[in-house]
């Protein structure tokens, strides 16, 4: 495809001769013992896709249960486990590992590095994350498991004290949660350290920090944020474990402890975590929108500053999850204002993406379709966020389906859409084959329709007073019709997701051969073959601008003349 026309000098045939096909055992050993950032990245991504489907199946069970009043599709305690595991899965086992995987795969290629700074730490981090997730899911079958789904945690994903104390949660659900997330949290810390070391110490010649692609910038800021975000959760979970196993009193109100302290500690982690989850969406948008608008990103320095700004402000907004707890009016006001301040840098980002598209020659391939939808859905999610940040409004709507609608607009409407776009964009690089555009368009339109049917409607059922985390509801509340619509939208989304999974597998064998640079893109990962060789680049690349491949393709008008 496009790579034949690349005027790249020094083309070198370095591919070793194809050896005989490895046996199954060799193949498994190769993947288990690998320290290659690309293979680890793919394993992270496969892991997150598996848990996306698992968490999605849990969501479907929840929607079937809530479709009709007084339903008994699942038992009440099973239902509690389902929504706890749905939240925990999507945040810890899907959202974060996807970021790690994509960052692992793309970032070293983009900055022209041979691998991550610490390849063995990279493998160690992956396996910790993986075993953390498996341990959490082992709670379904471990101990006296399975009937009524075993020891799975059932106290919502924020695990408020005193519900987590031994008296109220006698099984091992809380322990599975705390221990498995401490384990995967150490993996997360390892990833963050590795990423920062890679970015600061492994960039190829000429790639100053302000020439680094914005994808890598966002990954860097997300890693910095992870350093100070995941660790408070680990600390709080250690305290929780001390309370449960050593008879400590951190969150024991009968000995002077405080349940509100747990809330603070959890949300000091929990709110920046939301930004950690949305950062991959920003990162993908930063790459896909310029490439498919055929324009360089608008306002590069402002985008960097906005990313850092969001990370900084996100550290001071946590208590907007706690307006109904009864803080002082000074605290409430502080957290109202700091939360609304987040709207400024995110607004800068949205305007910059729009300005990138403005006047561009937009190609609406599947990745761009997803990212366009992302832009508008992210805006609406942000606006309902501003609404909810107003404390009196939050008192009215706290823990209602309006809140659920708001953050699913963010997590699905913004993040899952951008992540899907990212799959269609980088899949050819990782596999050497394009994903099917036909199935991709079906996936996009079905998912878009399903998404809006579900989550637009959910705002209204929330405004009508339906609280979150309820097992069922009486028929005379007037929530029934809306809930039927929400569930139907959920089924449409499920079909779209299955199409997506099918596309991922189908395209692996049947997809069109992609070539090195199918999208005519500008960052370094498209300069090497698809899939890239183990060593990434046979000769260390040198860059002189933010778009090195543009310079190579257009030597008569290179970017570095203007930057």
């Amino acid at each position, binding site marked *: 495809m496009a790579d034949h026309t690349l005027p*790249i000098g020094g*083309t070198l045939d370095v591919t070793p001769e194809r050896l005989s096909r490895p046996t199954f055992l060799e193949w498994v050993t190769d993947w288990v013992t690998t320290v290659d950032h690309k293979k680890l990245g793919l394993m992270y991504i496969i892991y997150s896709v598996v848990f996306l489907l698992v968490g999605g199946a849990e969501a479907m069970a929840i929607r079937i249960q809530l479709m009709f009043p007084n339903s008994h599709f699942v038992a009440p305690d099973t239902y509690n486990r389902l929504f706890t595991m749905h939240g925990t899965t999507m945040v810890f086992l899907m959202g974060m590992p996807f970021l790690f995987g994509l960052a692992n795969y793309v970032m070293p290629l983009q900055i022209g590095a041979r691998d991550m700074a610490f390849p063995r730490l990279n493998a160690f981090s992956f396996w910790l994350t993986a075993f953390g997730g498996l341990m959490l899911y082992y709670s379904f079958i471990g101990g006296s498991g399975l009937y009524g789904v075993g020891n799975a945690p059932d106290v919502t994903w924020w695990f408020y004290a005193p519900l987590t104390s031994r008296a109220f949660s006698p099984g091992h659900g809380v322990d599975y949660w705390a221990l498995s997330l401490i384990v995967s949290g150490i993996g997360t810390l390892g990833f963050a350290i590795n990423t920062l070391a890679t970015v600061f110490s492994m960039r190829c010649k000429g790639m100053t920090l302000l020439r680094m692609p914005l994808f890598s910038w966002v990954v860097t800021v997300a890693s910095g944020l992870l350093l100070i975000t995941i660790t408070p959760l680990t600390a709080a979970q250690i305290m929780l474990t001390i309370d449960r196993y050593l008879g400590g009193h951190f969150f024991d109100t009968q000995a002077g402890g405080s349940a509100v302290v747990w809330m603070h500690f959890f949300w000091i982690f929990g709110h920046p975590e939301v930004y950690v989850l949305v950062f991959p969406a920003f990162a993908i948008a930063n790459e896909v929108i310029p490439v498919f608008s055929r324009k360089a990103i608008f306002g590069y320095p402002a985008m960097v500053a906005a990313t850092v700004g969001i990370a900084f402000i996100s550290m001071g907004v946590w208590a907007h999850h706690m307006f109904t707890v009864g803080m002082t009016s000074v605290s409430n006001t502080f957290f109202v204002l700091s939360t609304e301040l987040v709207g400024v840098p995110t607004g800068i980002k949205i305007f910059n993406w729009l300005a990138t598209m403005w006047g561009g020659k937009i190609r609406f391939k599947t990745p761009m379709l997803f990212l366009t939808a992302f832009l508008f859905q992210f805006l609406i999610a942000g606006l309902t966020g501003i609404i909810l940040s107003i404390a009196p409004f939050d008192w009215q709507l706290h823990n209602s389906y309006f809140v659920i609608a708001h953050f699913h607009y963010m997590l699905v409407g913004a993040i899952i859409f951008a992540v899907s776009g990212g799959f269609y964009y980088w899949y050819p690089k990782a596999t050497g084959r394009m994903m099917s555009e036909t199935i991709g368009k079906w996936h996009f339109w079905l998912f878009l329709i399903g998404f809006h049917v579900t989550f637009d409607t959910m705002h209204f059922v929330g405004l009508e007073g339906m609280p979150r985390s309820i097992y069922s509801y009486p028929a005379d509340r007037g929530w029934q019709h809306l809930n039927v619509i929400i569930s139907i939208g959920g089924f449409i989304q499920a079909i779209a997701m299955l199409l997506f999974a099918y596309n991922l597998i189908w395209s692996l064998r049947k997809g069109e051969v992609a070539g*090195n640079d199918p999208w005519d893109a500008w960052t370094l990962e498209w300069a090497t073959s698809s899939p890239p060789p183990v060593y990434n680049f046979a000769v260390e690349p040198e860059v002189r601008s933010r778009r090195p491949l543009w310079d190579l393709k257009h030597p008569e008008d290179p970017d570095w003349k203007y930057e």
Partner: protein
Amino acid sequence: MSATTLIPRGPVTTEEQWSLPSRGKIAMYSLIIGESAIFTIFVVAYVFYIGKSLYGPTPQILEVPVLNTICLLSSSFTIWLSERALERNKMKLFGALWALTLALGAVFLVGTGFEWYDLIYHKGLTISTNLFGTTFYSLVGLHATHVVFGLIGLTTVLIFTLMGKVKEEHCERIQVLALYWHFVDAVWVVVFTVVYILGR
């Protein structure tokens, strides 16, 4: 997918020197930032719960660990001296100062052990006795855990030094480990202030 690999080459070689910071140090600084967040949460919990225990024993039973503190803080100084000795390739001096650092760290750990023995067996304070016990043992214990990890690292280096494997070119790695040790000492300053001065 062609069988060739395309190598991007810059149009003009950059003239200026291209040097990037040491990845080991960047990683250690990152780890220190992350660890600081963990300690912040434990320190905040300790400070918030000062005086909130509903029953005794109270923090007044604590004795200020003066000797421990002097040992730990001076070990930061000796490790810095040993780094300088390694830079100048004075291997004997390096080994001696490194062993001294290890000894000072070990004295701190043993001292903490005696302090805890006294608290548990004579003054009746365990982690489950009351809120003070919970916060005290978890904060000081968290720090002591970090001392243990530091001592494991120091011992490893000492063994390699005695085997004659540590050379001048390992200077950077030694400095990375020393950075961690300095962090452990700095945290002790905070823990000491909060637990033994403000909280008593």
